[in-house]
């Protein structure tokens, strides 16, 4: 549905995005992750046809942003990072205006606007001026303008910034509810948002894609070692010695009675560790496998990249 092909975007001599390629299948929600200034917004602006890429091309439903920008724009709904709308217009008026510009047939327009007001819960404010709305309502209006033409593709640039936790939850469930019917790219730097809503993740740093996979895989495949956390009663040094002796253990570190055991990628050594600890006469108080969260993966990838470059 969405296909980005070797997109490079330069602002003068500055390279904002370099040779980015990825695809999103119909109905998928793609999490687009990266620290601030990584090139997320630039990539999304290329997809929306806001500006053309310096090199490469992007396709929406087979239409190229370079050759058929109008066809692309008819098929997308875009929520920019800092949504600026006409403050002097009323909510209903504005959504109707955008609907007309996006080519919603005149006969359907009224009904469509009513529906959007319902979907985005704007009933209480639809006669108010946009300028007088709170941030949360503005965010819903901007989502409303994105949805008004019933687009198969949604591009959401950090849709939950500046919202309170309840509103964030609402927006997330609204996004989640569209899974399957619309193809969505969701950019964010809030990691739990991705694990909650997205089926695929692309991580970008300094304009380059550093990882792209399904949300589940990305945690797993990037974990090079298993970690087990232990709390053991007894002399720490002797415990450390015992645990280090187990085949497959790479490294043991501790602070006081708490130990972190690194092992080979495939082996699950929990049973073995438990046996040895108990056999050695120590008290096994706590043990749990530590799997890498998206947060760890993200930090790891982003810092690794920087390390490599230096």
């Amino acid at each position: 549905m969405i296909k980005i092909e070797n997109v490079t975007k330069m602002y003068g001599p500055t390279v904002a995005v370099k040779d980015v390629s990825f695809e999103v299948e119909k109905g998928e929600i793609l999490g687009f992750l990266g620290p601030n200034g990584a090139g997320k917004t630039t990539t999304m602006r290329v997809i929306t046809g806001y500006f053309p890429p310096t090199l490469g091309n992007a396709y929406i439903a087979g239409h190229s942003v370079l050759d058929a920008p109008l066809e692309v724009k008819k098929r997308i709904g875009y929520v920019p990072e800092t949504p600026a709308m006409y403050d002097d217009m009323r909510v209903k008026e504005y959504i109707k205006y955008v609907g007309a510009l996006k080519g919603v047939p005149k006969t359907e327009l009224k009904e469509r606007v009513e529906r959007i007001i319902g979907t985005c819960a704007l009933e209480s404010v639809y006669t108010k001026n946009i300028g007088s709305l709170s941030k949360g309502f503005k965010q819903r209006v901007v989502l409303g303008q994105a949805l008004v033409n019933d687009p198969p593709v949604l591009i959401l640039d950090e849709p939950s910034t500046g919202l309170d936790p309840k509103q964030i939850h609402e927006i997330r469930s609204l996004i989640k509810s569209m899974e399957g019917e619309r193809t969505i790219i969701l950019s964010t730097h809030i990691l739990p948002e991705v694990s909650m809503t997205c089926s695929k993740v692309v991580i970008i740093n300094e304009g380059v894609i550093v990882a792209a996979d399904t949300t589940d895989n990305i945690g797993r495949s990037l974990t090079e070692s298993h970690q087990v956390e232990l709390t053991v009663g007894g002399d720490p040094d002797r415990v450390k010695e015992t645990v280090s002796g187990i085949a497959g253990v790479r490294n043991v570190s501790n602070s006081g009675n708490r130990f972190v055991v690194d092992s080979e990628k495939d082996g699950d050594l929990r049973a073995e560790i438990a046996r040895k600890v108990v056999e050695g006469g120590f008290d096994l108080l706590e043990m749990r496998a530590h799997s890498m969260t998206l947060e760890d993966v993200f930090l790891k990838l982003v810092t690794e990249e920087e390390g490599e470059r230096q």
Partner: protein
Amino acid sequence: MRNIAEIFKREVRHYYTSPIAYVVIVIFTAVFGFLYFRNLTYYSQLSYQLMQNPYYPQRIDLVMAVFAPLFSSNSIIFLLVIPPLSMRLFAEEKKSGTIELMFTYPVKDIQMVLGKWLASLTILLVMLALSVPGVFMAFKFAGSWEWGPVLSGYLGMFLMGVSFLSLGILISALSENQIVALIISYGALLAFWFLGWAIDPNSGKKMADVLTEFSIIQHLDNFIKGVIDTRDVVYYVLFIFTCVFLTARVLESKRWRG
């Protein structure tokens, strides 16, 4: 077409919800009305004096005495009140960021430009229309009169006004700040005005003629006299077309540069 119409409607509404349209129209009507009133009083005094003296002509030309100087000074009023109409058209959208969403809608640059251009043109038409009743009154009280020169004068003022607007829109597309757009519009319009003065027209230099032809005010003269010369019409139409075309190109180049 629908896109142009929608943008046009929004922009016209904006002119009235923000008080720009009211302010500009009121100032224009007041200043125009005052100048008109002054010319008319002078004319009636003069006519009265002439009537006392049988050796003078019994009637002086209303058009030449009242409307020619009025329309001529109107170029100064336009110079002052038209740039405020055009300054915000693109500068405001760029400053506030609303242009970002506009650029992602299936709307062509030229449609955006034409919608806004037509909206500002409408305000200009309203301004001119509001001055018409006063003109009617003069004829009522002058008895017989000639329509032609007044109509051609209005056509000339309209074309000149639209030229001012079009240059203003181009400058608005180039700037992000409304005040900067306003000041540059004033500067550019004055420059086009003074172009004819750069070389003494009596010096016999070819360059003087060329520059005079470029002057934006120069071309109004014939209209005021009641002469519709193709050269003048072509000048204004080309001027307007060039500005509108360049505005669309400026938007496009803005996109490419990001």
